[in-house]
Structures are given as structure tokens and as C-alpha cells.
């Protein structure tokens, strides 16, 4: 059974290879092949899952060693896999949601002439993501880590003829590379400290606090940097909004459900390292809480439906990072929220894609309105996702988010109070911006207009291949949280890997739930008052200073542009100049002066016998003079 692990990765990898190298012959069947191989991966995952369930809790770690990858003196990197409960959770999420989104894409990308390639990229993504969660050492994880970055690059820039898409893709890759630098330094630190970077020995050593506190903090902070890049956390969050240039299924799969959560996986996986370094954990919770507010505020101001959802994704991952930074109190809930978020956010994105599909790819919510009548299935599934994300009682988000808020309070002390309050505030803002999205899209009056070429949009329900995945995901959004929480199933499932402790909450769980409900209602009501009671203007109003800043992603891009892009341009330009004039100039100058000297010397050879005679006589006279001088001395 364990030997099947490699197949999990191999199936989509094969798909990617065949689809990308296959050429036009495969255009007709490419999408089916891609979907089939993704489904195959899911089926293998389920087989392994049932096998795993049949074993006792301590016996659930499967390993598979494939081959020795980089054998160098003192350095051992292997291609070998480790499948435990944490990885299993991800495998099912990735291949399951992945397969649904493959199915959805069959319909969504139907009219795109490069659909085969799209499926090739999707399969490549699945392979890389599965490699990421299945690796048993950090270096192999790094391969998956950059692999998903590549797939994300290719998919964001899938419509490369649009300069904005190409720029967004490049930006995503570059920002991620900054994070990757962190991961690579973390691996180097592990190697020099422990002599290895396989999970088991590193985590064991970290548990025993070997290597010194400063080193462990260094490793943890570098891992956090990596996580910030991949999971779009402050200060490396700026790429996620732009990444919405990619096709919507990509946003759903990569930039909502799976890839962006890899940072959370990394932190939870390296739990022992973070546990050993309270300083690093403090930084993690700060990053998490800042991002959770940052994303939420940005989400409130965006009129582009996908960018609003992207802000929301950022914010929800902020919750997960916050939970992961809390240590053993929060790990399980971080992952639980990750899974439920995977369902409802993917569902929301697919819903948004369905709306765009019916609206001639219009993304401005101010030009939607009243769509509930035209797209009932989309409306219902999107609505369920909406209820789940704001934490409506009984739905998935309620259970998982509530637990995180609880855990934040349970951190204890002033810190606990601050974190808990931030999480509550975030919940209120979440309710506000999601209600805004919901109202602007599906309620109110219809506000759409003919586009520049005079095509009036004709909103219509999407085909079955698109609605069925949405329905399945809506089921997940509704029931997953309850299923996980009843009898603490999810907790018991993950506990052997991540550990769990309860902390000491200053207020009871019921109080937290009640408070959550209160802020939820406040958020919804505020949004209703602003967008439901009054008509939504088609042209965006100027807005307050904060709104305008939030529309520009709180000026992060402007900052980057001024400091990094401009500064970098000036630096490279002046370096090019220096290289040409100074470094090259020194050499060319030497050459020129030698040339000049020889030019002057050449003038002596004028061909007149007399001048040669003069120099001869002069020379003779000199020699005689010198001889006499020597004699005299």
C-alpha cells in the first residue's frame, strides 16, 4: 500500500508531461486526460486514506523511499515520501478540490484554443503541490514549493497576450522568490546546525532544543519568510491581488484553496522548531493578525469581485497563520480552517467565475446586480459559501473560525486579549465585505451595460460541468466543519502529528461564540445599510482616504514601485554605466595610452637616413660619455 504514494505525484506529472509535449493531436482529449489523471490521484489518495484509517493512531505514518537524489560527501538528499495524517489531509484536499476544478474548467475553458495546455499546467500544479506535502525532507519540499510557484506563474500568465497578466505572473514569481530565499537559508541553517534537513531528525533535534535558541529562532524566522511569500502574508502579500489576472479556476484552486495555504502547512509541519522559539512565534502571530486585518480592509474596498475575494483569502490565511503561531493550541485549528476554507473559498471563486462566464467576463461588481434571478444555482452555492465564510452558525466556517478566535484568547495574558480582539474585529469586517459582495452581485437592481463593442451581457446559468463542482463544494462548505467538530474528530485525527494543548482561556468558549455572533451581526447590518438600502452607484464614489488607500492595496504597490522598482532601475542603469566607463574604461584607457605612445615612437622612423645617423651618433656619444664618466668615478 505504501508504494502507492509515489503514484499520487506520478499520475498528474505524467498528465502534465503528455499534455505539454503531446502537441495539437491531443487537443480533443487533453482536458479529459488531465481530469482523469487528477481523479486517479484522488482515488489513490482515498485508498491510502482508508488503509490509514484501519491502523492505530501511532502507526499511521507511511514512508516510501524512491532513490538517493544528491549524494555528496556529508550531504544526503533523498527523494522519499512521508504520508502521515497531516499530509493525508492535504492530499485529499488537493486532489479532491483539484479534480472538481478540473471538471469545472472543462466548461469554463471550453472556448479557449489553448485548453489542452491549461490542463497540462493544472496537472503540473497538482504534481508539484502533492510533492510539497508528501516530501519527507525540506529540500524535496523546496522542489514542490518552487514547482507550485512555477505552475502559478504559468497559470496567472496563461493569457500572456495581456501585458497585465504577464506582469502579474512575473510579480508573483519574483515575490515568491524572495520567500524562497528564506526557505533556502532555513535549509542551509538546518544543514549546518543539525547536519541534515529531513523532517524527522530536524524536528526531533528542535524538540530537544539542540543547536541553541538563536539558531532555532533564525530557522523559524526564515521559514516564516518563506511562508509569507507563498501564503501572501504581510510584507510579501502584494502579488495575490494581481494574481487574479489568471483564469478563475486557477484563482479557485491555486490562489484560494491550496497553494496559498502551503505556508500554513510549512509552519505546522515545522511546529517543533517554532515551539522551541517563542520569539519566532510572536512574529508569526503578529504577521498573521496584521495580514488578517490588512486583507479584510482591502477586501472591503475592491469593486473587482475576484480581487475582493483575494483580499478575503489573504485575510483568512491570516487567521490560519495566527492560529499556527499560537503553537500547539492552534495547529489543529489552523489546518481545520484551512480545509473548510478550501471548500468555501474555492466554491466562492467558482461562483464568481460562473458569474463572469455569464457576464462577458465583466469583473466589476458595480456592473452586476440582481443576478439571483438569472443564475439560481450559482446564487445558492455562492450564498452557502458566503454563509460559511462569515461564520453563520452550523456552517463550516463557524466551527473553524470560532476555534481560532477561542485559541487566540487562550494564548493568555495581554497578548491573548489583543490577538482575540483582532480576530473578532476581523470576523466583523469579514461579515461586512462578504455581505457587500453578496448584495452587489446578486441583489439590488441590474446595473449592467453594453460593453465598448455594444454587446449587451445576457446573464445565464453556467453548464452542468461548472455547476456540479460548485454544488459539491457547497456541500463541503455546509457540512465539513460540523463533521470535523462533532466529537473532535479532526482534533483526534491530527493530534498525533501536531500535538495539541488547551491553553488557559480567560473567557469561556460560549462567551467567545456569543461575541462572534454579535460582531457578525454588526458587520452584516452595516453592509446592508450601506449597499442594500441604497442603490449602488455604477461609477465608484471617491471614498474616504482609507477607502482610496485600500483600493490601492494600502499603498503597498506604490511603496514597492518607488523603493524597489525605481531604485532598482536606477541602480542597474548606473551599474551599466559604471561597467562601461569605469571597469571597461580602465582597460580601454590602458590600451589607448599604449597605442598613443607607440604612435609617437613611430614618428622617429621617418625614413631619412640623416635622422638615423643622428641617433646613431647620439648613441655613440652617450656611450662614450658614459664610459668616460664611469672611468672618472
Amino acid at each position, binding site marked *: 500500500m505504501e508504494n502507492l504514494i509515489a503514484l499520487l505525484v506520478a499520475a498528474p506529472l505524467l498528465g502534465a508531461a503528455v499534455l*505539454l509535449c503531446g502537441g495539437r493531436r491531443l487537443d480533443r482529449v487533453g482536458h479529459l486526460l488531465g481530469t482523469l489523471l487528477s481523479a486517479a490521484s484522488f482515488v489513490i489518495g482515498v485508498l491510502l486514506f482508508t488503509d490509514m484509517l484501519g491502523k492505530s493512531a501511532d502507526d499511521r505514518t507511511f514512508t516510501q523511499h524512491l*532513490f*538517493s*537524489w*544528491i*549524494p*555528496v*560527501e*556529508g*550531504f544526503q538528499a533523498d527523494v522519499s515520501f512521508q504520508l502521515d495524517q497531516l499530509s493525508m489531509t492535504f492530499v485529499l484536499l488537493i486532489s479532491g478540490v483539484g479534480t472538481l476544478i478540473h471538471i469545472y474548467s472543462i466548461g469554463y475553458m471550453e472556448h479557449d484554443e489553448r485548453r489542452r495546455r491549461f490542463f497540462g499546467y493544472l496537472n503540473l500544479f497538482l504534481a508539484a503541490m502533492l510533492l510539497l506535502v508528501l516530501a519527507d525532507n525540506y*529540500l524535496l519540499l*523546496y*522542489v514542490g*514549493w*518552487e*514547482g507550485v510557484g*512555477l505552475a502559478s*506563474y504559468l497559470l496567472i*500568465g496563461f493569457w*500572456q*497576450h*495581456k*501585458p497585465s*497578466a*504577464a*506582469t502579474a*505572473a*512575473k510579480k508573483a*514569481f*519574483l515575490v515568491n*522568490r*524572495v520567500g*524562497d*530565499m528564506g526557505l*533556502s*537559508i532555513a*535549509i*542551509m*541553517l538546518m*544543514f*549546518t*546546525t*543539525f*547536519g*541534515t534537513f529531513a523532517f524527522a531528525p530536524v524536528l526531533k*533535534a528542535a524538540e530537544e532544543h*539542540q*543547536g*541553541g535558541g538563536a*539558531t532555532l529562532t533564525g530557522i523559524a524566522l526564515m521559514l516564516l519568510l518563506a511562508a509569507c511569500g507563498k501564503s501572501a502574508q504581510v510584507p510579501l502579500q502584494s502579488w495575490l491581488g494581481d494574481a487574479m489576472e489568471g483564469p478563475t479556476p486557477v484563482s479557485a484552486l491555486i490562489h484560494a484553496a491550496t497553494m496559498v495555504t502551503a505556508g500554513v502547512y510549512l509552519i505546522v509541519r515545522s511546529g517543533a522548531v517554532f515551539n522551541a522559539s517563542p520569539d519566532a512565534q510572536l512574529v508569526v502571530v503578529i504577521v498573521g493578525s496584521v495580514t488578517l486585518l490588512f486583507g479584510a480592509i482591502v477586501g472591503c474596498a475592491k469593486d473587482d469581485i475576484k480581487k475582493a475575494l483575494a483580499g478575503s483569502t489573504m485575510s483568512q490565511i491570516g487567521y490560519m497563520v495566527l492560529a499556527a503561531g499560537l503553537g500547539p493550541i492552534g495547529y489543529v485549528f489552523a489546518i481545520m480552517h484551512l480545509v473548510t476554507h478550501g471548500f468555501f473559498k474555492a466554491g466562492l471563486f467558482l461562483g464568481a467565475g460562473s458569474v463572469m462566464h455569464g457576464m462577458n467576463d465583466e469583473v466589476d461588481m458595480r456592473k452586476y446586480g440582481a443576478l439571483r434571478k438569472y443564475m439560481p444555482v450559482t446564487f445558492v452555492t455562492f450564498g452557502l459559501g458566503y454563509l460559511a465564510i462569515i461564520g453563520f452558525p452550523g456552517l463550516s466556517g463557524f466551527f473553524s473560525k470560532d476555534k481560532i478566535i477561542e485559541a487566540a484568547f487562550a494564548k493568555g495574558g495581554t497578548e491573548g486579549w489583543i490577538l482575540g480582539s483582532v480576530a473578532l474585529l476581523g470576523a466583523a469586517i469579514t461579515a461586512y465585505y462578504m455581505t457587500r459582495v453578496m448584495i452587489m452581485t446578486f441583489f439590488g437592481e441590474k446595473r449592467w451595460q453594453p460593453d465598448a463593442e455594444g454587446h449587451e451581457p445576457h446573464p445565464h446559468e453556467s453548464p452542468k460541468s461548472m455547476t456540479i463542482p460548485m454544488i459539491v463544494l457547497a456541500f463541503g462548505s455546509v457540512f465539513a466543519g460540523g463533521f470535523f467538530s462533532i466529537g473532535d474528530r479532526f482534533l483526534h485525527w491530527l493530534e498525533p502529528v501536531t500535538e495539541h494543548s488547551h491553553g488557559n482561556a480567560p473567557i469561556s468558549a460560549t462567551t467567545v461564540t456569543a461575541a462572534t455572533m454579535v460582531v457578525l451581526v454588526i458587520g452584516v447590518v452595516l453592509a446592508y445599510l450601506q449597499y442594500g438600502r441604497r442603490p449602488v452607484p455604477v461609477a465608484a464614489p471617491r471614498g474616504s482616504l482609507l477607502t482610496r488607500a485600500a483600493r490601492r492595496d494600502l499603498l503597498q504597490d506604490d511603496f514597492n514601485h518607488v523603493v524597489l522598482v525605481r531604485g532598482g532601475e536606477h*541602480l*542597474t*542603469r548606473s*551599474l*551599466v554605466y559604471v*561597467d562601461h566607463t569605469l*571597469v*571597461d574604461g580602465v*582597460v580601454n584607457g590602458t*590600451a589607448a595610452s599604449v597605442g598613443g605612445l607607440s604612435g609617437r615612437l613611430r614618428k622617429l622612423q621617418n625614413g631619412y637616413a640623416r635622422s638615423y645617423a643622428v641617433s646613431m651618433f647620439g648613441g655613440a656619444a652617450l656611450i662614450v660619455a658614459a664610459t668616460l664618466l664611469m672611468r672618472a668615478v
Partner: protein
Amino acid sequence: MSFPLLTATAVLPAVGAIATAAVPAARRTAAKWLALLVSVATLVLAAVVLVRFEPGGDRYQLTESHSWIKDFGVRYELGVDGIAVALIALTALLIPFVILAGWHDADPQETGSSRWRPTQGFFALILGVEAMVIISFEATDVFLFYIFFEAMLIPMYFLIGGFGDRAHSGSDENAAAQRSYAAVKFLLYNLVGGLIMLAAVIGLYVVAGNFSLQEIAAARANGSLHMATSTERWLFLGFFFAFAVKAPLWPLHTWLPNAMGEATAPVAVLITAVVDKVGTFAMLRFCLQLFPEASKWATPVILVLALISIVYGALLAVGQRDIKRLVAYASISHFGFIVLGIFAMTSQGQSGATLYMVNHGISTAALMLVAGFLISRRGSRLIADYGGVQKVAPVLAGTFLIGGLATLSLPGLAPFVSEFLVLVGTFSRYPVIGIIATFGIVLAALYTLVLYQRTMTGPVKPEVSALPDLRVRELAVVVPLIAALIFLGVYPKPVTDLVNPAVKQTLSDVHKKDPKPAVEAAK
């Protein structure tokens, strides 16, 4: 006496060069096929060397030794260690692709008129370079090495100056002047380096009494040959200077962008992927073995120079407007990594550096040759003249992207393995330098992706709208290179197994041991 395999590997392309040059003027195609055939046969011989070489065995294998100039103790001595075998294999592997990629580069522009035979000359010169590079990798006699180290400048000079890129960078009217400037610059830089090395070679003879690498290294190791500290340092600097010019290391790098920019793409590959490797190879073989103490003495300065090369090369690559010059500056950055790995003096660093030489050869060849195909279609080297190529030539764009991704060391492709090894090897001894070098990976992503974005994506420019996609000959060049990149990225073990023992011996020559992990050291 057994069959002189190493001599044969070097002599075959040399004979092939003469034969190719002798092909009658009218039979141009025959000359091309002959050259290709010879290069493939050389590849076969190199493969035999690879098979016959036993990684665990003696340090130098397949040795040949004959007396040559008795009065000066110069011998014809050949022998290979794992590092040399890997580089010979790389050279022999790349030449057929260089020839195939340059198939039409030397066709005479107007038919009939000329008495001289450019096509024959072009391919003969390439084979000549191959022969000299191979024998440089094989020579274990310092004087023998020096002769071919210098002699390869002659064919390279003619290849750069005589067969320039017909697509010059827009604004320059006088392409021929540019080209001869580049060729002369290449020659002068390398000659100056070579002359200083000659002085050091003579100095070494005065001190040691012979030229045999093995004898001198052994005598140095067992203490029977004593060198004064200052003597050793001067001799080391003499050798190192020549290799640093060849490699090229900042600030001796400026000849490379000119040469690579003005030469045709296959010749540019020949420069950076094959000829320059002799420089870094010689650092490992000659500098470290002959002058271990001086190498350690100079390490801090060299590491800083390498670091500057990495960052500086990458930053300049970002600022380039010419595709080929961009690749040249990227190569300077990569050579910085190689030198860093060599002088970090750890087994990861040196194994990584050797692997880097191989991988950089393949990845730059892939990127540069595809860039060459692109340039030959549009007739311009300026990045700004392109846009939206992926729409009209998706296969070309795809292979270009893979070449670019290899250049930025994407995991899964070969350069990642070597780059990471170099970084780890450097980090374990010099953490700060390791961290700064890591910035190189962000800059690499920047210049590669900016290049790809500006040339391949966006709206299709009218001038490129009719570009044909890759042809069969071009695919035959690119696909094997990409396959090699993927294979060595996933399974580099064959190369590391070859290289590891040699690196271990080199490290013991300089009396350096890998730093122990902090946890073990504490115990």
C-alpha cells in the same frame, strides 16, 4: 602498451578539423556533415572514457606519459580524474549541438565569388577548439596545459572576429568594427592573462625543476619540495590571474559580453560553456593542488570577488537591452557561483562547483541557442524589438522559457542541484557570504522573467507576426539539451558519483575538512 584513449579523444577532432578544412570549396554541405560526424565520433570516444573511468580507483586514470622536451623536463603527460572526465563529457556532448545549431551560420552570403572557404573554416575552427579544450582537461603536465590553454585563443579569435552575428544591435552601423573590437578584446585580455601565467609557469620550473603536476603535488604534499611563502603566493597569483580572466571573474569580465554579443550564438556557447570552463577547471586542478597554502591565503579576497561577480553580473543582466549580452552577464553571475563553490573549500561547495560547470554548460547552451534561433529569425538582438512571440511560435517560446528557468535554477532542472550545493557549501563555512549569494537567486529570477516577458508575452508586434516556429534541425538541438537538464535535475547521482572522489582528494590537498554540524561540534 594500451591504446592511448585520451590522446585519441583529443586527436580525433584535430584530425577532423584538418580534414574539414581540406574539403573543396564547392562541397560545403559535405564539410558540415564531416564535422558533425567527427564531433559525434568524439562524443563516442568521450563516452568510452566515461565508461573506462572507475570513480573509486586511482586519482589519475588512463594515464599516458612520454618524454617530450628533455632539456626542460617537459613531458607529454595525460591523465583524468572525475572532474576532468565530467568536463570532457560535457565538451564532447555540446560540440555536436553547436555544430548543428550553427549549420547555416557560415554559409557565404553571396555565392561563387570567394576563393576562401568560410564554411569549411568555421567548422574546422570549432573542431580545433574542441581538440584543444579536451587536451587541456587531460594534461597533467603544466607546460603542456599552458600551450593548449593559450593556443585555443587562436581559433577562438577567428571564430569571433570572422563569423560575427549578422544581426547586430540596431543602432550600430559598423558591425564589422564592433566585431573586430570584440575579437581583439577577447584576445588581448586572454593573452595578458596567459603571459602572466607563462611567467608563473617558468617560475614554477625554477622552483620545482619539472613541470609534472603529479610529481610537484606529491613533493609538496610530502614536504620534499619547500616553497617560500612569498614565492608560493606570487606563483599562485600568476596562475590565478590567467584563470580569472578566462573564467571570467569581476573585474576582468568585460571581454565576455562583447565577445558573446558579437559572435554567433553557437560560438557564444562555445565561449561560455566550453572554453571558459577551462579557467574554472584549472583553478581546481592547478591552483589548489600546486599552491594549497597560497590558495587558502587568497581565499577571502577571491570569495569577495566571486560574490561581487554574482550580484554585479545579475544586476547588469537586468539592465541589458541586448538579449545575448544579457545571457553573457548572467553567465558572469554563474561563474561567480562556480568560483565561490571552489574556494569555499567544502566538499558540497566543490562538488557543487564541478556540477555547476556541467549544468551551466548545458543550460546556457539551451538558452543561448534558442535565443540565437530567435535572433536569426528577426534579425535583431534588441529585446525591445520583440513582443508576443509565444503567440506565433509557441514551441520556441516554451523552450526559451525552459532554458530561462534552468538559468534561474528552478528545482527539478539541473542547475538547481549545483547552485544549492554551492550555497550550502559556502554557507557552512561563511554564513554571511552564503546569505548574500542567495540574493543572486532573486536577481536571476528577475532578469530571466523580464527577458521572457518582454520578448515572448504581450501583444504580438507586427515585425514578429510571421516568425516561423522551430524547425526539425533546431528541435534536434534543443530537445536533447532540455532532456539532459531535466535528467540531471532529477537524478544527478551519476555525475556526483564521478566527481565526489576527486573533490575529496582536492580537499585533502589543501588540508581542509568540512565543518561539522554545530550540534555535533558541540558534543
